[in-house]
């Protein structure tokens, strides 16, 4: 791309812009203040003719910075979509005429708004470069899969079918994981009436037969460094040998550990041999292999069995699991059928509080269980009394009475504990531990926790993927269930969410898809979700860097490592391009080619600040482009008005807000500043997980700045905005305008 910058400004007169605004004036502003070398008007800029006019200038006039003075950057993107140039939108429609009344006395302020947006767009253009891929990594189609259970195996098989070579690293001596320990599995096909073969042997055979799949048994990943497109994993065998392999992306299918039933003494587990867990019953069923199931204590053929659902689950009790493992109801029905199918005379009772068999298959399977004579009792077990035969004491919730039942065997439906590795440093700081204290103090601490790491990531922020509630590997959970906080690493199966064998298989297919996608895109230097395709990436001016580590600590994605001197290493393909590091940097050395302290800083500096006595305050609004900015657009769509004194600048994430923007704007005479980010906290809505949270923390310190300038603290306010706050956003701006009216104009106008 030629370094010689040429700005072309194109002013649209459609959608009422022509009627409401003095386009001649706008043109002057663009060329005089905005330094646009080329400037043209059009009555219908997004039309074929309008677009062609621009394309011609790009082709013939060498325009490479295109300023579109028309509608919002969210509108007409299909039309204003030019290659090899940077595009900058001055939002005159949603940003100006749609939010201002069409009256004569308002024309002046409305025009001022429009002029400013043109200056701002030109300023942004002036300070942006056209991003190009760095070539830090090429395409590496190899997928690393950690865990050789059905999820891991299926991820490998499906990725391989699409032409991507896979390497499975399995800790144990054999493939198959938990499913291999099952006698049968919950049915997966209509009519969902009987247990099905697990099919695990066929799967293992398929994996072994697939030349595209390499399997490492008795092995773990002892170190994973690098980034998507160039991961380097040390695969170490028990024997001691270690080999290092390169991968494009990673699927983590490390499964679960059955809940330790020894924590349930009330159910006589460990005391009475005939009280077993579901997993242990699977072993007995396998042994019986269709014959009569014999109980552990005396090998007597079981003639009556009771299943206690939610054993140690759905409970806040110390040592219990708070979550529901989801699959246990169906698993108990399946296991009751082990008995019924062999001998219908065997009494099988399932003691439950809510029978959870959702979906089409689930309800059919429940009915099938009843059909086969499994008895379902809504009740809560309080105790299992030890004895020749265990006796279950329970409250029957339907008959509303205490009851007990002596049976040959009791099965505890205990839940799943995810194998999700070690907590991250960030998680540690939320915990009360020595490490936490040290971590807060910013010391170098080796994380000492009794959990073994699974991935052993060589990441500044920790060795494993961050966790969500109940220790499951993090994900956005609803819209983007596979997105973890570690780019290029996707979790599948029970490590992500409790699920049965079949769901885990299916889950793995999606994870494989994401891994493939990331391997491909990283190779092309493209960002992953949510800024898919963005080629820009952060760089820093080493001479300016003070090695303060704020960026490495605050990056929501653990993208940044440190070299031995403590300088940041960015690992571009781990980066999601949110700019939180840029906002974190106290010395402003971090920038993206098309998004930097200047691209925004120069915009606000180019806002025309009227003299104090003109009584025309200026309000700077920094709005998250993902939620707040769309909300502002939609307010405009509905013609909700807000103050003509507001100047809105979209930011990638409020987390990218540099304190310098605040101080600069205050110094240059802005009267108020409104920051709009996404809701934070457990139910955070920030697409960059904690960008908005970081911003809030930083802004809490702005108070000092204001004091030194002795300005009122009301002049800077931060708000959590959802995309649906369409009525609220104009209100917030107007309230700031009123506040300024009360406390008066800023004295800093020169």
């Amino acid at each position: 791309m030629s370094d010689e910058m040429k700005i072309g400004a194109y002013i649209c007169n459609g959608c009422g812009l022509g009627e409401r605004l003095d386009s001649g004036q706008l043109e002057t502003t663009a060329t005089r203040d905005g330094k646009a070398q080329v400037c043209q008007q059009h009555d219908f800029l997004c039309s074929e003719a309008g677009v062609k006019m621009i394309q011609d200038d790009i082709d013939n006039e060498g325009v490479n910075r295109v300023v579109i003075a028309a509608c919002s950057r969210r509108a007409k993107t299909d039309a204003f979509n030019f290659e090899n140039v940077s595009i900058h939108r001055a939002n005159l429609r949603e940003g100006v005429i749609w939010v201002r009344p069409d009256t004569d006395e308002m024309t002046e302020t409305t025009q001022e708004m429009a002029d400013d947006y043109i200056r701002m767009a030109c300023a942004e253009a002036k300070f942006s470069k056209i991003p190009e891929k760095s070539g830090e990594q090429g395409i590496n189609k190899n997928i690393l899969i950690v865990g050789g259970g059905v999820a891991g195996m299926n991820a490998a098989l499906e990725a391989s079918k699409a032409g991507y070579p896979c390497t499975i690293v399995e800790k144990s001596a054999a493939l198959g994981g938990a499913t291999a320990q099952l006698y049968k599995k919950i049915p997966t096909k209509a009519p969902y009436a009987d247990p099905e073969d697990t099919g695990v042997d066929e799967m293992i055979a398929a994996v072994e037969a697939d030349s595209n799949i390499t399997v490492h048994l008795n092995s773990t990943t002892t170190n994973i460094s690098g980034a998507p497109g160039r991961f380097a994993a040390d695969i170490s065998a028990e024997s001691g040998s270690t080999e290092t392999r390169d991968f494009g992306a990673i699927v983590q299918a490390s499964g679960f550990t059955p809940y330790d039933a020894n924590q349930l003494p009330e159910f006589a587990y460990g005391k009475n041999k005939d009280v077993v867990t579901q997993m242990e019953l699977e072993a007995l069923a396998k042994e019986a292999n269709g014959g009569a199931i014999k109980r552990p204590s005396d090998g007597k053929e079981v003639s009556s069995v009771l299943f206690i659902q939610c054993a140690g689950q759905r409970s806040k009790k110390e040592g219990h699991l708070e979550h529901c493992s989801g699959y246990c109801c169906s698993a108990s029905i399946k296991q009751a059928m082990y008995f019924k199918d062999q001998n219908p005379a065997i009494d099988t009772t399932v003691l439950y509080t809510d029978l959870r068999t959702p979906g089409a298959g689930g309800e059919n399977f429940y009915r099938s269980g009843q059909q086969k004579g499994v008895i379902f009792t809504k009740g809560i077990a309080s105790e299992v009394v030890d004895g020749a035969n265990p006796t279950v004491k329970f409250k029957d919730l339907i008959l509303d009475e205490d009851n007990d039942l002596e049976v040959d065997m009791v099965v505890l439906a205990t839940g799943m504990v995810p194998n999700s590795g070690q907590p991250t440093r960030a998680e540690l700081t939320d915990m009360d531990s020595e490490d936490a204290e040290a971590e807060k103090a910013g010391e170098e601490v080796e994380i000492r926790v009794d959990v073994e790491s699974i991935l052993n990531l060589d990441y500044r922020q920790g060795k494993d993927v961050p966790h969500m509630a109940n220790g499951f590997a993090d994900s956005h959970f609803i819209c983007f269930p596979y997105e973890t906080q570690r780019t290029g690493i996707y979790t599948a199966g029970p490590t992500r969410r409790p699920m049965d064998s079949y769901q885990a298989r299916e889950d793995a297919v999606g994870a494989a898809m994401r891994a493939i996608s990331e391997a491909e895109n990283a190779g092309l230097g493209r960002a992953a979700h949510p800024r898919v395709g963005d080629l820009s990436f952060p760089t820093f001016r080493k001479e300016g860097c003070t090695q303060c580590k704020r960026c490495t600590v605050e990056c929501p994605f653990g993208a940044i490592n440190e070299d031995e001197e403590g300088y940041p290493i960015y690992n571009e393909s781990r980066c999601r391009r949110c700019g939180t590091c840029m906002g974190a940097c106290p010395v402003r050395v971090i920038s993206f080619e098309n998004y930097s302290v200047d691209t925004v800083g120069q915009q606000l500096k180019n806002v025309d600040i009227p003299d104090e006595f003109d009584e025309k305050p200026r309000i700077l609004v920094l709005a998250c482009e993902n939620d707040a900015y769309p909300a502002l657009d939609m307010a405009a769509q509905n013609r909700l008005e807000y103050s003509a004194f507001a100047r809105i600048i979209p930011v990638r994430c409020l987390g990218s807000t540099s304190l310098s923007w605040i101080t600069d704007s205050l110094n240059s005479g802005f009267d108020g500043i409104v920051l709009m980010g996404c809701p934070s906290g457990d139910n955070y809505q920030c697409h960059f997980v904690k960008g908005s949270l970081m911003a809030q923390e930083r802004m809490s310190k702005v108070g000092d700045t204001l004091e030194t300038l002795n300005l009122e603290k009301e002049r800077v306010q931060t708000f959590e905005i959802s995309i649906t706050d369409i009525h609220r956003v104009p209100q917030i701006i107007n309230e700031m305008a009123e506040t300024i009216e009360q406390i008066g104009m800023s004295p800093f106008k020169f």
Partner: protein
Amino acid sequence: MSDTNTSMVEKYRNNFLKEVEANVEEGEWVKMCMQCGVCSGSCPLGPHWDHPPQELFMMIRAGKRDEVLESTSMWMCTSCYNCIVRCPRELPITHIMHGLAHYATRLGIEPKNQPTRKFAQLFWDNLARNGRVNELKLGISLYFMNGIVEGIKTALGMAGIGMGMVKTKRMNPMEILGGHTVKDKKGFQAMIKKAQELEAARVDN
């Protein structure tokens, strides 16, 4: 306690559900109930049930044999079929109620003084005799089912209605002398007898 009853207790020990499945009309449906309670809520005589259908089903599963069979509940059934059409599991609840009542009767442990039980028995005897119901005889025997004194009271109480019916020719006093029957009484009764034998046979083995 009748012999059948003792032998049944013997035969099924504590497994009342199996007993019901084997011996009660539509009894094999009991296990399909998911305790939603829509039947209990749908019954027009609901408030008068000690144990509504869904609870009876749970009690059967819980082996509460005597409580169920001696209960007056199923005798509250008016055969309105609300429960059947609303049951999400399509249990023929009305028939199961009838079946339980009948089974209790056969075992001789039904609530002896339950009025509907008496009426139902009278009704059956009445039709079984002649093949057709003789409303007058049925009515009269009904009034006197609780003994002479009660009977006269009831009869007097109902007299008004009786007269109305007679006036409108919807009740014929002469029927007391015989009234409607089927012609082939012999064949009819033989048929009933056979049916009863066959059914008894089912239970006994």
